[in-house]
């Protein structure tokens, strides 16, 4: 039983009855696809951002830091940092204060980086989009792989003793001057703060969803099914690394990229390659690198990007062999 069956009924009515479009025409199928996918994704987005907002209100980032700094967890701290990264909404503008706040708050560099990797890579918006467009199985594989990447890459980076490559001003910053026990004076109720956080995210991405799904719908309706097989050729061993290396510098909203990715998969590009491309796009980017350059020397920045890029390429091959 498809939970979204009523949405399909509505999309069919909207496209074929109200607008009188032909179900087998390109325009008809594109519009139908657009209406169905947009409604489905926006509903999922509202649900998941509320869920994440609830977790995030219960475990605010300041408490997370306190917990990670005070407890010896014998390696489990990488997993915890990475899981907490997934429920923390990521804004690249917060990455710098977050990074310093963690490192100077006594959290090991590797654990901080695990958090920094998983936060954009596995995020509520990404999960909602994947669920809506690719289904539960692909979403589960993506989420588990994303967490694995951040744990493993964080662990490796932690073992490399890269602390000396923090920017000098960060090293000079005295940790005990920081106000670690910041208590938030929350004056709004739990439900209100969850909802306002969820709607903040919703407002930030809904436009990208519309544009992304619109482009995806266009590809679905107008690009011939065997287009990529004819023009690009079957996937070869290099397609994963090339897709990842193209995706790394790109900065794009997951909400815009995922619908296009789904349409490309429907037209014959292999799923694993596309997932790896998506990970590279949402996980790393030039603007994020420029932000982090303020707190890292280039040795650390390059190692960080290198290890994560390598891990994403590896997962691309894993995706292609199991999906």
């Amino acid at each position, binding site marked *: 039983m498809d939970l979204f069956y009523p949405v399909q009924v509505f999309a069919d009515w909207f496209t074929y009855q109200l607008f009188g479009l032909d179900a087998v025409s390109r325009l008809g199928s594109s519009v139908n696809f657009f209406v169905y996918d947009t409604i489905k994704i926006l509903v999922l987005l509202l649900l998941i951002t509320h869920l994440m907002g609830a977790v995030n209100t219960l475990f605010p980032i300041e408490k997370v830091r306190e917990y990670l700094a005070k407890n010896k967890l014998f390696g489990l701290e990488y997993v915890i940092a990475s899981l907490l990264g997934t429920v923390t909404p990521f804004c690249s*503008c917060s990455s*710098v*204060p977050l990074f310093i706040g963690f490192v100077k708050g006594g959290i090991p560099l590797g654990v901080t980086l695990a958090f920094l990797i998983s936060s954009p890579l596995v995020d509520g918006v990404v999960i909602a989009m994947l669920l809506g467009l690719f289904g539960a199985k692909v979403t589960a594989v993506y989420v588990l792989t994303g967490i694995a990447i951040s744990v493993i890459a964080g662990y490796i980076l932690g073992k490399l003793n890269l602390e000396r490559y923090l920017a000098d001003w960060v090293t000079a910053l005295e940790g005990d001057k920081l106000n670690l026990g910041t208590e938030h004076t929350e004056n709004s109720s739990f439900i209100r703060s969850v909802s306002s956080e969820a709607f903040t995210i919703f407002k930030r991405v809904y436009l990208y969803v519309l544009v992304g799904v619109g482009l995806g719908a266009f590809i679905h309706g107008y690009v011939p099914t065997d287009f990529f097989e004819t023009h690009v050729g079957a996937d070869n061993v290099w397609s994963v690394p090339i897709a990842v290396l193209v995706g790394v510098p790109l900065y794009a909203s997951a909400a815009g990229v995922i619908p296009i990715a789904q349409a490309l998969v429907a037209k014959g590009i292999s799923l694993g390659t596309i997932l790896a491309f998506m990970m590279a796009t949402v996980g790393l980017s030039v603007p994020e690198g420029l932000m982090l350059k303020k707190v890292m020397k280039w040795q650390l920045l390059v190692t960080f990007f290198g290890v994560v890029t390598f891990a994403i390429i590896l997962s691309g091959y894993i995706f292609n062999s199991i999906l």
Partner: protein
Amino acid sequence: MTIQVLGSGCMTCKTLFENTKQAVAELSLDAEVEYITDIQKIIEMGYLKTPILTVNGNAVLVGGLPSVEEVKELLEGTE
């Protein structure tokens, strides 16, 4: 009344600064709105998320992007 918007210079922070200026104008408050991008200062305040909106040195909002109307509510709540 001193109002400050602290951020790392990203789009969200700039928009909050603009919204705050407009809110102050619409409420015709006697206040100067300052925009601070000194990361060190944000860190010393102990916050991990940006942007931050402060009124007379007290943070009234950390993270998130309120609309002009919501900023007005926040500012009115501090009077």
